[in-house]
């Protein structure tokens, strides 16, 4: 398997603060890869460096081609970033959010694509006109996911999808992500605070510590290594 996404020695900073100190990782085509670590370890910044929402240096390759410029360019290149805290247009309707998800695509099948999303998330078909801001937290997260899928991304990046959601809903979201991965070969890079959930979904994981990769390996390895589990994953 070749790597769809590759980060080589990526640094990123917020003003004077260095948030990533040379992160290298690879996401194989068709894989689910998790980025784990404590608060402030640089998980979110890793995703942001890929989508171009933070100033970064180092090499980021998608399909062997360098990813440059701002988030507009990343979106166009096929990277869908679902940011932390949902990231829906709360003032716009559900359907409008979905339409925006397909913004970079020239498509005539918008309706069919929205219907496809309604198959994953049945509530969408009844509440298309509802304002996104009036949805529950779980529904907003699902909408953010559906909106990302509307762009038919090469790479889906999820930032803490479990944040603030009930366990059942988290389970449902990860079930759908896994299904998309298995049935459609969707490549996923997921950032999670909750290592247990993430390791269940991912085949490979990287553990970050103060802006660097501290440990990496297959999910099984990380899960079964008592020392790693205790010191990095906290369970």
């Amino acid at each position, binding site marked *: 398997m070749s790597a769809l996404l590759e980060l080589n020695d990526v640094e990123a900073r917020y003003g004077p603060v260095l948030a990533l100190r040379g992160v290298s990782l690879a996401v194989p085509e068709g894989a689910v890869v998790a980025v784990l670590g404590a608060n402030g370890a640089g998980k979110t910044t890793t995703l942001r460096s890929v989508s171009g*929402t933070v100033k970064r240096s180092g090499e980021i390759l998608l399909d062997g081609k360098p990813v440059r410029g701002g*988030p*507009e360019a990343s*979106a166009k290149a096929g990277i869908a970033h679902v940011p932390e805290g949902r990231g829906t247009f709360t003032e*716009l309707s559900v359907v*409008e959010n979905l*339409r925006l998800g397909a*913004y970079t695509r020239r498509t005539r099948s918008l309706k069919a694509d929205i219907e496809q999303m309604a198959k994953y998330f049945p509530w969408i078909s009844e509440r298309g006109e509802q304002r996104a801001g009036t949805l529950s937290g779980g529904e907003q997260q699902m909408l953010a996911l559906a*909106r990302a899928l509307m762009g038919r991304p090469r790479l889906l990046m999820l930032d803490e999808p479990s944040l603030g959601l009930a366990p059942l809903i988290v389970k449902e979201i990860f079930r759908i992500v896994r299904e998309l991965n298995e049935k459609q070969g969707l490549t996923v890079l997921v950032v999670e605070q909750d290592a247990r959930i993430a390791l269940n979904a991912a085949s490979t994981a990287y553990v970050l510590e103060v802006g660097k990769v501290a440990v990496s390996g297959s999910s099984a390895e990380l899960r079964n290594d008592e020392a790693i589990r205790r010191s990095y994953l906290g369970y």
Partner: protein
Amino acid sequence: MAQFFQQVVSGIASGGIYGLLALALVLIHRATGVVNFAQGEMAMFATYIAWTLTTNHGVSYWPAFAITLLASFAGGFGIHQAVIRPVERGSQIRVVIVTIGLLLMLNGLATWIWTGEVRAVQSPFPGGTFEIGGVAIAYADVGTIAVCFAAVIVMWAFFQFTKVGLALRAAAVNPNEARLVGVRVPLMLGLGWGLAAVLGAIAGMLTAPSVFLDPNMMQSVLIYAFAAAVLGGIDSPIGAVVGGLILGVGLNLIGTYVDFIGSDLRLPAALLVILIVLLVRPAGLFGKPEVKKV
């Protein structure tokens, strides 16, 4: 009673114009977060362009109207890219000051190019009136109302049904998120400024025949538009239009039936509306009250 209805109809016509300019203010307020003090002068400038085309270059009215709209769109877009965009990320007061600078600059420029002389502008509509049930209605009023409503409906359809319109709304409500889905936000905001300039140009061209054209022509109209936008809610497009109509009809009726106000006190009355709305219901009729999160 006939007088009452006549006043209502002409009030709707002038209210439609206030509504258009108010809609332009709302568009820019949503896109850039500030009130554009130069909106009236941009409209005045556009009206001069139309006047020059018809008077000096022999273009007939409606083609000149269309050319002016295109020029206004380019002008509004250009103004955003050239002078608003560089200060947009700073505090809002900087943007406000730039719009005030624009107001003075456009006013001075228009005086320099076209002199301050007051010009008569032809109306595209036939003069005279027709009667419905004893009420005399001016053709000009009906024409003005038709153009205003057409403009509002076209705008609404653009924002509601087109991809670009949706992207523009997304860029205005949540620029960071919009960039993540691939929307080029600065381009969209420039587009918003262009469309606002177009609405203003229509308002200016509809105003000119009744008040004559001079560089200060739009200043009082801008005050009415402010009042309309504040009344409707500065972030509400529907509010701007409804606010404009209420103001147009209301001021007309008050001017007719309340003796001591007459036409001299129309402008202070509009300011009074602004003051009262800001005191009683700052969000306006259609606005959502702002909730400050602590």
